């Protein structure tokens, strides 16, 4: 199924393999050779927070683990669960630090603190394609996203457990249809078990976030302030949302699906697997979603899914 051998490794943080994309600050330093090297370490170009949400048992933790590495051995892992991870990836020549929050264990819709949502630049919403109820929960998760997340946050819907095709209860079309109703939401199916599409999920999301980012935000824009170890106290959903409603939520926009996809000013066709975010700069008819794109915005990652 995976026709891209080795692809999923390329962006990992595996410092042990020098064939990987080298880290900019210390390419191939080994042993004594690098010892006297006096170059200032290259700081990260971006710091992005990504959260993984979805109903219980859909495989959120597996997605995070798979993105990090697939060689972990159960016996070595500490029994205190991992709260979040910092991972470094390189994309488009940029060094990006991701802070990835797995919200497992906080699946009651209200129990995930609003602070998680607010600071997230990317939100991965996961359902289990073999369990209809996890798909039926999606509108409730969308309500939370609508209420708490930044409108700029990139959304990705993931139907997980593609390896369990025989138990499938939700068709790919159903997933696609749901994602199409929401402005800027992408969709894909994945298998954390088989490590299918997992790295692509994260990289695609990062790529989208980068594309959207105004140039002046480069390097300086995101500070640590958005990321504190202790999230703010939970704001119960009954309280007014932290940001005033702007009269058009994602869901309301969703009634006006965007028919055209433009990249760099050129109209492209739908990709059957990934629905590209509405990226056009001129979409007078349907949506006011804008993003900063270069004229030559490559579709490089998208092409991996066709």
């Amino acid at each position, binding site marked *: 199924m995976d026709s891209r051998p080795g692809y999923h490794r390329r962006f*990992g*943080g*595996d*410092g*042990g*393999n020098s064939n990987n994309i080298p*880290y900019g*600050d*210390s390419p191939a*330093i*080994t*042993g*004594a050779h*690098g*010892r*006297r*090297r*006096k*170059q*200032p*370490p*290259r700081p*990260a170009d971006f*710091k992005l927070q990504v959260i993984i949400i979805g109903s219980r048992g859909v495989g959120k933790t597996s997605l995070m*683990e798979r993105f*990090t*590495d697939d*060689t*972990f*051995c159960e*016996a*070595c*892992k*500490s*029994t*205190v*669960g*991992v*709260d*979040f*991870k*910092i*991972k*470094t990836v390189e994309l488009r020549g940029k060094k990006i*630090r991701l*802070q990835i929050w797995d919200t497992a264990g906080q699946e009651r819709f209200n129990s995930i603190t609003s602070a998680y949502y607010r600071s997230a630049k990317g939100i991965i919403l996961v359902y289990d394609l073999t369990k209809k109820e996890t798909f039926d929960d999606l509108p409730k998760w969308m309500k939370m996203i609508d209420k708490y997340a930044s409108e700029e946050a990139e959304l990705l819907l993931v139907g997980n457990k593609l390896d369990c095709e025989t138990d499938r209860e939700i068709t790919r079309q159903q997933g696609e249809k749901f994602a199409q109703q929401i402005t800027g939401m992408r969709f894909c199916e994945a298998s954390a078990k088989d490590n299918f599409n997992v790295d692509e999920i994260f990289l695609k999301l990062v790529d989208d976030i980068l594309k959207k980012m105004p140039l002046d935000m480069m390097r300086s824009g995101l500070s*640590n302030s958005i*990321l*504190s*170890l*202790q999230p703010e106290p939970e704001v119960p959903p009954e309280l007014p949302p932290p940001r005033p409603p702007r009269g058009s939520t994602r869901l309301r926009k969703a009634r006006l699906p965007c028919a055209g996809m433009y990249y760099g000013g050129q109209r492209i066709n739908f990709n059957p697997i990934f629905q590209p975010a509405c990226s056009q700069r001129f979409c007078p008819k349907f949506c006011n979603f804008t993003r900063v794109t270069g004229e030559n915005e490559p579709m490089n990652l998208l092409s991996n899914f066709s």
Partner: protein
Amino acid sequence: MDETLVAADGKNLRAVLCQRCGCRVLSAGTATLATRELLLPSMKKKSSLADESNPDCELLAEHWLVHDMFTFENVGFTKDVGNVKFLVCADCEVGPIGWHSLEEKSNFYVALQRVRHE
């Protein structure tokens, strides 16, 4: 300790890697050597972290200290254990390799004995 690890200014001369999988935790020149006795649960016993009645811990004194969590190339933070978060490898999750107290928001320690150096 191995003096090839530390520069004159106290920074790490070599990148800090996971002992087990080689995942890069810190790049060279990003952390400072700090001496402080910190109690870290053993890496060997799986139950040591969960079973607080029988903590199989080690007192470790030499650490790489960073003040911003985004200095790390790759690292995992455990859920709170008391007011401490332990640091683990982001890839294989082996650990704890380091220590962070919620009371000291800008101190992140990685024990030299729990990592290897490039």
